[in-house]
């Protein structure tokens, strides 16, 4: 009887392993003079869209390329789909899809030829149908065009198309929308959402907070090669004390302490020439704030109330904005 009743720990572990797409532990990557990744622990669940958010140079690309098996880590453990790159490289390559940051493809092959070439690298029984991929990626019209004649958005869609060609279990997208116009970005977002809806695990890096908020189930914020926060976008935003934010500038300068105790204000800090206040309920906080300003005979010169974003999360954690480039 005891023998047939497996203990909790042993059933739990494989179950957790099964819905875990990627596990990273103590990951370090050191280049000659730069510490690109400085000890990173992450888990990506199966079927989720996971975002690595951080400014340029945070180590996002290095981390993703280590997950893709393109870069060897200096130390640490990396497990993708329960396998390790040093043991199952061939199998893993067949089960992941990759879109690198800015790949230039074969300029003189057509879109269709490029897709067929990449399809030929995969198991023909598993790989997707070229026609279907062309349709899903809205490339059917451009099938006969040389790659060098494509626009930025079309190239990027082709790059994603090549990533999904082998019907991967995990798809990696490194800054998929960087450099694209708003319309192409939105089209690509739809594509990525559709992949996620089909149950694919997607790992994407970005330095656009709106992209991460819109696409990702969970987001890891990295800075200087370290994880500084992880969670769903709304958890992360809750973490800074409120979903709303008031940016306030006044004719006579105020210190954060002057307003921190106002009803509905969770926290206050300096931001630019004025203050940024985290707010839980704007309808409570705003009248109270005006009352406080009146009591101090101070008038607002600028007042903005808005929904907090992941950019605010990054700002409150590091004191810098995501795009200080």
């Amino acid at each position, binding site marked *: 009887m005891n023998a047939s009743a497996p203990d909790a720990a042993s059933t739990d572990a494989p179950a957790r392993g099964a819905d875990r797409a990627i596990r990273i532990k103590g990951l370090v990557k050191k280049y000659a003079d730069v510490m690109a990744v400085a000890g990173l622990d992450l888990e990506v669940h199966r079927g989720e869209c996971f975002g690595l958010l951080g400014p340029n140079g945070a180590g996002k690309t290095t981390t993703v390329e280590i997950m893709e*098996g*393109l870069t060897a880590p200096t130390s640490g453990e990396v497990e993708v789909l329960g396998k390790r790159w040093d043991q199952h490289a061939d199998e893993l390559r067949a089960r992941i899809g990759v879109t690198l940051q800015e*790949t*230039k493809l074969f300029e*003189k*092959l057509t879109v269709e030829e490029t897709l067929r070439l990449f399809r030929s*690298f995969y*198991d023909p029984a598993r790989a997707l149908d070229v026609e279907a991929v062309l349709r899903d990626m809205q490339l059917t019209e451009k099938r006969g065009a040389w790659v060098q004649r494509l626009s930025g958005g079309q190239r990027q869609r082709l790059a994603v198309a090549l990533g999904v060609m*082998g019907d991967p279990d995990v798809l990696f997208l490194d800054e998929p929308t960087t450099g694209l116009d708003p319309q192409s970005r939105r089209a690509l977002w739809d594509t990525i959402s559709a992949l996620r809806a089909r149950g694919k695990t997607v790992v994407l890096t970005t330095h656009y907070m709106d992209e991460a908020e819109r696409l990702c189930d969970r987001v890891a914020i990295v800075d200087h090669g370290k994880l500084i926060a992880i969670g769903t976008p709304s958890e992360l935003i809750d973490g800074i004390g409120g979903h709303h934010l008031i940016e306030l500038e006044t004719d006579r300068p105020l210190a954060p302490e002057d307003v921190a105790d106002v009803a509905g204000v969770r926290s206050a800090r300096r931001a630019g020439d004025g203050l940024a206040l985290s707010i839980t309920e704007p309808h409570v906080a705003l009248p109270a704030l005006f009352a406080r300003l009146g009591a101090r005979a101070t008038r607002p010169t600028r007042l903005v109330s808005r929904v907090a974003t992941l950019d605010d999360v990054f700002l409150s954690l590091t004191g810098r904005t995501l795009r200080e480039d």
Partner: protein
Amino acid sequence: MARIREFARERGAVFWTFGFPLLITVALGIAFRNPGPPRLAVAVVDGPRAAEVQRALEADPGLEVTVLPAAQAAARLRAVAAVLVVETGAGAGDKVIYRFDPSRPEALGARRAVDDRLQRAAGRADVVPTTDATAVAQGGRYIDWLVPGLLGMQLLSGALWGNAWNIVTARQRRLLKRLAATPMRRAHYLMSFRLAGLLFVPLQVLVLFVFARLTFGVHVHGSPVAVLALSIFGSWSFAGLGLLCAARAQNSETANGLINLVTLPMYMLCGVFFSSSRFPAAVQPVIRLLPLGAFNEAMRHVVNDGASICAQGFPLAVLLAWAVVSSTVALRLFRWT
């Protein structure tokens, strides 16, 4: 593997592959063509007897005689526009002075011919009757010798640029990295360049030899099949060097430098434009061990001497060794990122 031949779709390189070697052949063929017996330029210093001497010398069809003031004649000699300057005295019996550079073989010939004419004009009689019977040896002209060397050069540069350049630009464009992230067989990718390159070899060989035949009457004395087989084998061996150049280079500038570093010394040493026998004896074994040296040696034997390819064991072994060693080292060093 067949699909990977799509990599071979390279345009614009056609001129460098086919046109350029033909242009070299034409240029050198014209510069070194044999326009009958060469005429030697002789300058006669202006003086009382200059016209008389000129008449005597012009009887010789091999001499091209000009009468010039002393200073101009000397200048021509220095500029190698004249091989010999003849300075005569005022009277018939005065001493004649020949000025020339004895290190130039044609100057000695000119001196003898001029002296002969002048002595005869002065009344010397030949005592032994002679007559000339001339013949040009088949395959012995410069152009005959040049064409196999040009083929070697063309195949070497084609193999190096075709392999190294494409691989390094693919690495620079991160295409190599992208491909490395797929389950593509990596060896197949590298082999595809070699195969694609080899596909063009028969066409290159054919174009060059047909052109050389039509324009300069260059004949292939050995078996055409042997020429083709040797070209393909040589090209395959050179491709290993191309892979080696491409193994690590991160950008096309580095690749460019590496390719030149490999090819230029070989063009000089391995007897493309002039015979490598001009180098000291100590260097000769080294030249025979260089891939282009081995290739040219074997190719000239086949094309010019009509030798069998089976008799070229040593150069073939050298090419094989280079192919194996360069490919092995290249694969060890090769980087996909």
